[in-house]
């Protein structure tokens, strides 16, 4: 039984399938299709790590980062922005811990997640 829970902000069903394939065996994963749904879920049940696309309705990936990193109860949760947009600088400014461009490099993504989970701090 995977011990870590990862929330993923991703609307594209094909990308959801790919991420399930890459991460599903090692981690417990939950998908959210809007930024608002992701943030609400994080506030209710904080996950161990968040991966999010920038392009989400209601609240984009930048605002998700800003909102969660500005809250004392959620700022410790590592966030990976995983997107098609070349927006690393803006993602870092918004508070993202890591930035990856799609399409995914499975080995790189898994290694980075492991690294972030090791460094994880408490609220």
């Amino acid at each position, binding site marked *: 039984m995977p011990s870590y829970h990862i929330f993923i902000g991703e609307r*594209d069903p*094909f*990308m959801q399938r790919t991420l399930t394939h890459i991460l599903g065996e090692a981690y417990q994963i939950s998908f959210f299709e809007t930024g608002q749904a992701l943030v609400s879920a994080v506030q209710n049940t904080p996950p161990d790590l968040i991966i999010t696309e920038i*392009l989400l*309705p209601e609240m*984009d990936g930048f605002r998700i980062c800003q909102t969660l990193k500005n809250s004392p109860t959620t700022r410790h949760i590592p966030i990976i922005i995983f997107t098609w*947009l070349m927006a690393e600088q803006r993602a870092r400014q918004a508070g993202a811990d890591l930035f990856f461009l799609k399409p995914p490099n499975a080995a790189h993504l898994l290694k980075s997640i492991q690294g972030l989970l090791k460094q994880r701090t408490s609220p």
Partner: protein
Amino acid sequence: MTIFRIPTGIPGLDQITHGGLPANSTLLVSGVPGSGKTTLAMQFLFHNATPTDTGLFISTVSEPQARLLQYMQQYAFFDLSKVGSAIYFEDLGAHLLEKNGDSAIHRVEELILQQQPRYLVIDSFRSLIDLSGDTAVIRRAIFRLAAHLASLNCTTLLVGEYQAETLPNTIEATIVDGIILLQNQPDELRDLRGIRVIKLRGSDYEAGEHGCKITHAGLQVFPRFRTPPTPQVYTVSSERVPFGIPGFDDLLTPGGVWRGSSTLLAGDPGIGKTVTALHFLLNGVPLGDTGLYITFQEDPHLLRRIAQNFHLDVQQAEESGRFNILYASPVELELDEHAYAMQTAIRDIAPQRVVIDSISDLQAASSRGQHRFFDFVYSFTQWCKNQGITLVLTNEMGSIFANELTFTGHGISHIADNIILMRYVQMRGEFHRALTMLSTRGNDHSKKVYEYFISENEGPRLGKPLLNAFSFFRETEHA
């Protein structure tokens, strides 16, 4: 009633649509894959959408949104700060694959109502139809969507892969206010891109095919250079423009050619057309004329070296801004792209004298046929005339030492006001340069053939008249 127009942000397209796309209209952007439809639509959105007047890009299955964004970000017009704040992206691909076109159109209507965009793109609209099983149902859905769009304060681009031949028979063509057709045809080693406005309801536009290209900056349209439908009024100058070549201005054209006229230097390769044209431009510098040398043959370094060999002070003239060079490879650009570059340079520099060296090279860039080439040269000559520019065109003869007067650009002779023929002639076992004024429009001129000397020390000069000069392979004698 004046139709309010939305500028597209695409250089040249606003010119052919007389200011942009009609506001609140629905237009079909059609063409074969790779012709630039999505680029056009995306450029339009990024140019116009703001956080208050938002844009909505709905992608369907023909190009998944992910891949679309991946490539669109490479363009200079892609402004990341607009994504999510002024432009919203929705992907109907999965919805369409699971359900059908009718259901997808319902979803489009929901999105429009929710987001109230001022600018909407559906790419590809055709996929909505292709993935619908029931023709009658999808037709009703399309008519409903068209009626819905017509009631909104929204300018819509429906993007689709259609062939020019089958487009008029599609239902999409009947519901839209305008159609823009993009083309991309292979032409030997390069692709020949073109754009046409086929229909623009209630609005005038520049009909016919225009050249276009896609670069890092996005789509750029080169409106087809053509003569204005009604002749422009211009003042006929009574001023003479001398070539500054000894003998030339006295014997051939007393005092020089008329200001605002065009002169064709037609001749054998290596006969001295470039040197003659250079003299014409540089002679204008001390007289206060600014010159522009448009060359498709010699790059600026080579041209400067040629001038140096003849002791022509190009450097000082260039530094003073009175001598300018525009160089472009004839094989890399399309005719209308050349026209755009030449017009831009002429507008920037405002020259009184312009040389095009050579027309035959420009002909190499004319992939759209000879008729288009002559139409272009005529239009360009007229345009220069209207600007008061004195123009010299060079033209290579069809073959070296040809025994008849065949111009490479047959038909050009009808375009120029003056034609100077330059040829090699044989005299006592040697080839000599010879030239004659074949015609001058509305002016008397010498009918004689003169020997033409070009030496590095003295430059070009006109010599004595020759007899039988252009009867080839017969001995020519001095008169």
